[in-house]
């Protein structure tokens, strides 16, 4: 373990000064990694959540998806992606492009926890159908 940490420490000095203190503490036994404390992070994946409308989400428009109160994400790091879907019949012949522009963690005055994911149409044509996935790693 010490040898591994030494190698990591040497590598990270070049990559990022921010990690030096953490790795140095790990090396000296001041910090303990998760495995030593007897737990493992959990990976989770939710979806697809499906959105449909006619005529669809216009270019430049944005949706806010919200999970909560208290969806169990409060000790998690999260990632989300929205995928435009093919049309029901044939091909649209146009590009459709969506972006998750922001993920917010929100705690209310009553200490309820919400997560908000913002999906924006960054293309030039409406998006009538899309699906969104949210995934994360829970401490």
């Amino acid at each position: 373990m010490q040898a591994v940490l030494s190698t990591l420490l040497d590598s990270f000095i070049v990559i990022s000064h921010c990690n030096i203190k953490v790795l140095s503490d790990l090396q000296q036994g001041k910090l303990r990694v998760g495995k030593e404390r007897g737990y493992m992070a959990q990976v989770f994946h939710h979806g697809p959540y499906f959105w449909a409308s006619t005529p669809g989400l216009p270019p430049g428009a944005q949706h806010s998806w919200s999970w909560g109160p208290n969806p169990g994400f409060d000790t998690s790091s999260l990632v989300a992606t929205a995928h435009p879907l093919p049309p029901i019949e044939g091909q649209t012949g146009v590009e459709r492009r969506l972006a998750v522009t922001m993920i917010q963690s929100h705690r209310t005055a009553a200490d309820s926890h919400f997560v908000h994911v913002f999906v924006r149409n960054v293309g030039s044509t409406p998006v009538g159908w899309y699906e969104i996935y949210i995934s994360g790693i829970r401490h």
Partner: protein
Amino acid sequence: MRVLAMHDAQGNIHHIVVGPPDSPPAVVTAEPGLLVTEVEAPEEIADLDLSDPQSQRQLNEVLQNFRVEAQAEARLVRKASEAGY
């Protein structure tokens, strides 16, 4: 399967959101004036497999041909129902 319908006061559906049953429920912002109602999935999509591309066809059918009716419990009914909206 969870089905959320964003609809106007007459029950006309503007957006529909479908989520997997074993995941935390999600809601989506709606335009001012729209209402959001969780509805019982109609028979047409009760057993929908969201990973199947054909599911879009069935959801589109619901989007085009159903409206929200909220009585004792919210549900989707055919637009040509006797309620006559």
